[in-house]
Structure formats: structure tokens, C-alpha cells
């Protein structure tokens, strides 16, 4: 049976991407390749595999590779995935700004950093990469700055689109989504930090 390809764009929304991959796996599709927007699947037994996604934007390239090798040693299969936020959204806008020597050029590095899609053979036990409360708090904490910067970025992009009200509202809507994401991670961060304090 031939592979199927799907086009999806999840930006920084890791949970949604993971849930979709797990839904595909439950229908009997296993990830074999992923590009910027295209995910390629082959058929497998329904729920034969289970997926998690880790954010490694805080790691250098070498550290990211070392972590991926560690996960492979654990018996998992690993895919690098771009966060991909420069694609189509605001590409033109912030490239233009970057050319003007604006500090916004720094955003390229924030956005191009990778996610790791981790595949495990489903043995019926839950699949979590981060398990202690201290580690979970650290993990959620990593999202705070990128999400806040993205909120600011799209607010600025919105303000620059003042000439076109529709565009401006669209950028502001995107900015709000990232602000919401920021608060979601902020709440998780404080929740797990508090729990880790009780534990230790």
C-alpha cells in the first residue's frame, strides 16, 4: 500500500500537532517523513505507535542532536521538525523589517528552531517525556519567552498594517492567539513549580 501525504500547519501549537499525529496513528498511519508542511505516513496496525513532541528551542544544534541520539538509544524514533512560524505568516513583513536592521531579525532564530517528534511503540503505558514536576515546570517555562515575543511581533506587524484594516485585525487575532498560548504555559509553569516545591 502506498504512503499518504497530508499538509498541516501547526505553527507553535505543539499539543494540537501531537494530538493529530496520535489520531493518525490510531487510524493506522505511522509517520515516515515530515517536511515544512507535508507529513508522509505509511500504514501500520491501528494504535501501533504513539507520539510525543518536545520543544528543543533552548538547545544548541549539537545539544539537540545529542538529545535526539539519547532518545534513539531509548528505542524511540525521532523526527526533527521546524516550528515553521516564518512560513507564510508575516514572512514578507519581518524580512523587510530585518533588512532595515531592526532587532526583529533575531526572530528568525527563535522561529527556525526545532521541535522533536518522538515515536514510541505503543505498549499500553502512557508516553510522557517530562515526568517530575520540577522538570515539567522547567519545560513549560521554556515556552514563555518565545510565545511572548511572538505576541509582540504580531502586534507590531498588526500596527504596521494600519493601512489595511482587515490585515491589521488578522495580525492582531494571531497576536492574541499567542498571548493566550503564553498564559496557558504560564499557568502550567506556576502549577508545576508549586507542586515541585511541595514534593521536595
Amino acid at each position: 500500500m502506498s504512503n499518504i501525504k497530508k499538509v498541516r500547519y501547526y505553527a507553535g501549537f505543539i499539543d494540537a500537532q501531537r494530538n493529530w499525529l496520535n489520531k493518525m496513528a490510531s487510524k493506522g498511519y505511522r509517520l515516515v517523513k515530515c517536511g515544512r508542511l507535508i507529513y508522509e505516513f505509511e500504514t501500520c496496525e491501528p494504535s501501533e505507535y504513539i507520539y510525543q513532541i518536545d520543544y528543543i528551542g533552548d538547545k544548541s544544534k549539537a545539544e539537540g542532536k545529542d538529545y535526539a541520539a539519547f532518545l534513539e538509544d531509548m528505542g524511540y524514533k525521532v523526527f526533527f521538525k521546524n516550528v515553521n512560524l516564518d512560513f507564510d505568516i508575516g514572512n514578507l513583513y519581518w524580512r523587510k523589517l530585518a533588512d532595515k536592521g531592526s532587532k526583529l531579525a533575531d526572530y528568525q532564530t527563535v522561529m527556525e528552531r526545532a521541535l522533536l517528534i518522538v515515536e514510541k511503540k505503543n505498549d499500553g503505558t502512557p508516553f510522557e517525556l517530562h515526568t517530575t514536576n520540577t522538570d515539567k515546570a522547567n519545560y513549560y517555562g521554556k515556552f514563555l519567552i518565545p510565545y511572548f515575543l511572538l505576541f509582540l511581533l504580531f502586534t507590531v506587524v498588526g500596527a504596521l498594517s494600519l493601512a489595511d484594516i482587515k490585515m491589521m485585525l488578522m495580525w492582531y487575532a494571531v497576536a492574541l492567539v499567542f498571548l493566550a498560548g503564553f498564559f496557558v504555559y504560564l499557568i502550567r509553569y506556576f502549577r508545576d513549580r508549586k507542586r515541585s516545591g511541595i514534593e521536595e
Partner: protein
Amino acid sequence: MRDNVKGGALTEVTFFILLALYTPKHGYAIMQFIEETTSGRLSLGAGTLYGAINSLLEKEWIEPCGDADGRKKEYVITSKGKEVAETELKRLKDLTEIASGIIGG
């Protein structure tokens, strides 16, 4: 991973990793060791384990071992790590003694 070095109290995860590495093990074997010895009560995620191993490598409580040819990286406890583990064992013994004296048993 916050280990109180002065007070000697280790986190459970740190102590279990140190114990696991009295014989050399790679990541997966450490995870299995912890699951088996705690009968599944403590199950570590790979990301958490990776962070814990790196922090212990940094403190030089554990070190990589074995030839580089083997694809899987193995780790083993250092003499510094053993000292820390022994101190923790003594602390826990004292604690259980005090507790037994009060609670009984």
C-alpha cells in the same frame, strides 16, 4: 532537579540514578532499573532522565564509560558520586531511626 548538597538531601530521581549506576548502564537500562526496583511506582520520562543525567555529569557524580565504539552511551557512578550516595544513605538511616523511635516499628 534541585539537590540540596549542603543538607545532603537528594531528590528521589537523583538517588535512584546514582544507585542504578553502581554498575554501568545506558539510559534505557537506568529507566528499567528504576521502574523495576520501585515496582513501577516511579516511572521516568526520557526527557526528564536526560536532564537528570546531564546535571549529574556536570556535578561529576557520574561519568560516561565504556569504549566509544558501542553506539549506546553508558554511564557509571564516580567516587564523588559514591560519597554523595553514602551520605544520603546515612541521612536516611538516621531519619528512619528517629522515626521508628517515635512512631514505633
